[in-house]
């Protein structure tokens, strides 16, 4: 696997996108705002997957300010946009927990969004910060999903409890929480099967996992992380609505931000559901999961200068 540079940061991962479309927006610092420039800005925001329902009012506001002469230079316009976007993403990125052990984190999401990889990376992160995490392979549906997490567990050197193919995922999580109590693990990270949010039965199964987890330890799960594919478009909003309704999602993880996609769909989710984005997946290596930094994230959309 081709290595990304050591110590990848959100900026460096997201910066790959800058040379592209939006990069062209930023010429000299004293450049004047024009109608064309505003059109380009609008295009850039839409192409970053920001929802048209957010972009349209924002652009209307900027065009009004431009018409009245209050908005003259590109740096000023950019600063206004950046401020709006950064403020929209403000939230507590710390993982929840009320001191009871083990802390229980469920990782949920649609197929192929990056749940298994995220679970493993999160285990590594917690281990490096001095915790004693336990991974749980509760995706008993997809062929070889259990093996996939087992290989990861070995790679990041974290213990794992695995379900059996076609077994009951809720029971796997329940048993793992008891096992963690016995072994003295501080945090349990359970990887669940990918499911489309429109599949009633599979969502019901997820609801059951959450309920059974609560029986394993009062107040659990502490954190239900919804993993969103950073390359996803507006459908991510539907996913977030449905998963929140069924599984009481407490935070978001946006993955695959090392490509050219910018994950802009997340703005509408944060606005509507008031869920914080807690972590970002910015590469393929175990350490490529970093806490959300709104300024860096927005800088991936809008270059820092200006």
């Amino acid at each position, binding site marked *: *696997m*081709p290595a990304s540079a050591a110590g990848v940061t959100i900026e460096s991962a997201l910066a*790959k996108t800058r040379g*592209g479309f939006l990069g062209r927006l930023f010429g000299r610092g004293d450049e004047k705002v024009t109608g064309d420039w505003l059109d380009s800005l609008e*295009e850039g925001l*839409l*192409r*970053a*997957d920001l*929802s*048209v*329902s957010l972009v*349209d009012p924002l652009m209307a506001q900027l065009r009004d300010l431009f018409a009245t002469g209050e908005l003259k230079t590109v740096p000023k316009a950019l600063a206004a946009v950046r401020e709006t976007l950064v403020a929209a993403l403000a939230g507590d990125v710390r993982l929840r927990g009320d001191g009871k052990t083990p802390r229980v984190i469920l990782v949920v999401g*649609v*197929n*192929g*969004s*990056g749940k298994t990889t995220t679970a493993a990376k999160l285990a590594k992160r917690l281990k490096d910060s001095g915790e004693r995490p336990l991974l749980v392979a509760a995706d008993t549906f*997809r*062929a*070889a*999903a259990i*093996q*996939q997490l*087992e*290989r*990861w567990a070995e*790679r990041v050197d974290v213990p794992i409890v695995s379900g059996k193919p076609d077994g009951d995922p809720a029971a796997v999580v329940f048993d793992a929480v008891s096992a963690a109590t016995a072994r003295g693990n501080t945090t349990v990270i359970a990887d669940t099967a990918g499911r*489309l*949010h*429109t*599949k*009633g*039965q599979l969502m*019901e199964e997820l609801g059951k996992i959450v309920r059974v987890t609560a029986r394993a330890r009062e107040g659990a799960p502490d954190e239900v992380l919804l993993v969103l*594919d950073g*390359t*996803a*478009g*507006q*459908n*991510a909003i*539907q*996913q977030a609505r449905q998963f929140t309704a069924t599984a009481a999602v407490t935070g978001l993880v946006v993955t*695959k931000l*090392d*490509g*050219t*996609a*910018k994950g*802009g*769909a997340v703005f509408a989710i944060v606005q509507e559901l008031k869920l914080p984005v807690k972590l970002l997946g910015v590469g393929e290596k175990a350490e490529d999961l970093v806490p959300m930094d709104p300024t860096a994230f927005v800088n991936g959309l809008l270059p820092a200068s200006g």
Partner: protein
Amino acid sequence: MFEQLSDRLNSTFERLRGRPRVSEGDLDEALRDVRVALLEADVNLKVVRQLIATVRERALGERVLESITGAQQVVKIVHDAIVEMLGGTATPLARAERPPTVVVLAGLQGSGKTTTAAKLANMLRKQGRKPLLIAADVYRPAAIDQLVTLGKQLGVPVRAVDPSRVASDVATIAASAPLEGRDTVIVDTAGRLHIDESMMSEIAEVVAAVKPHEVLLVVDAMAGQDAVDSASAFHARLPLTGLVLAKADGDARGGASLSVRAVTGVPLKLIGTGEKLDALEVFHPDRLAQRILGMGDILTLVERAQEHVDQKTAEEQARKFLEAQFTLDDFYSQLQQVKKMGPLGDLLKMIPGMGAMAKQLPEGPEAERQMRQIEAIISSMTRGERADPTVINGSRRKRIAAGSGTTVSDVNQLLKQFAEMRKLMKQFGSMAKSGRLPRMPGMPRL
């Protein structure tokens, strides 16, 4: 999939139809709505702009503003523009003159390549072909195990490559496939980022070594604006021959499919419509456009019926259906057959004008419960009652309810629905007789 796009476009068109004439302002307002609908469906911005410009130009060129059927014309122009963008009619998969036919699957991480590989093997196997799967994803942990497990479920052999010589192994295994009696080779490759130079070189080497007849890019139906950029990058490095739209069974509006086809010119060939290994269908652009515009997809419905329903029974029932001689007995046997065809809601969406009704249907276990209840009620009726429900009086209703473990009001409801259904059938029948319904393949000429 596509319902929301279709809802939005339909409400736009409804408003337009409400006008006696379409003014230029009306047209522009409608096009603004179309723009928002397409963007919310993740259609690429460039494609949206082009489509809007095309529609506007054609609408003005055809003088829709002066026409009394202007609104209809606009709908047709939008429909045609979407069909063009999706690429007209279905494009079949290539087949080598001399076996093996080689198909390589490529795509981003998590787009659905491994599942698609297994589904494609299953589809070809059902057509009498003898596929061989090659697991060439040597990077994702357990990706090979995943394909091996799926191959076992299907009874299709799976061969893994040596991580140190992926390209040459793929070529060697593919070349020797006919010796083992396999006529088609499907290569599952690792997911990769289009900007990852060394990984893009790796797959380019695989393709150069194995010289495939099909290089299919698997695109996630939930993908956003970036889908066009990544697909273009894959297209620049690989001789793509087709696209596969994966995970199209959710409620994603699938605009990426419109866009990638439009920008790269590579045809969409297959569409993944469910978790099960038989949920892969040949992609029909013209039918999809009709579904997007809420015009239904009768052809797919008929095909699915042909696949699952006994032909003679179907023709007999279609005749009865249109002549409103359909009895509760027919209804019962149809219920059994419909159950084989897939979720009821999916089927209704394919019928013109039934999309809204599909939304009112319960889903999952609740739908199954209702289905069982209907079955129980009908099977508690006598033969005479099933043939002519009008004889079912109050005391018979009580008996049927007791026999089926339901209530009289459940029985009443079923009978009422059945009566309404027959009324609807009569209307269909007379429409067909007057030639307002097109003849459908597989249906008797009326």
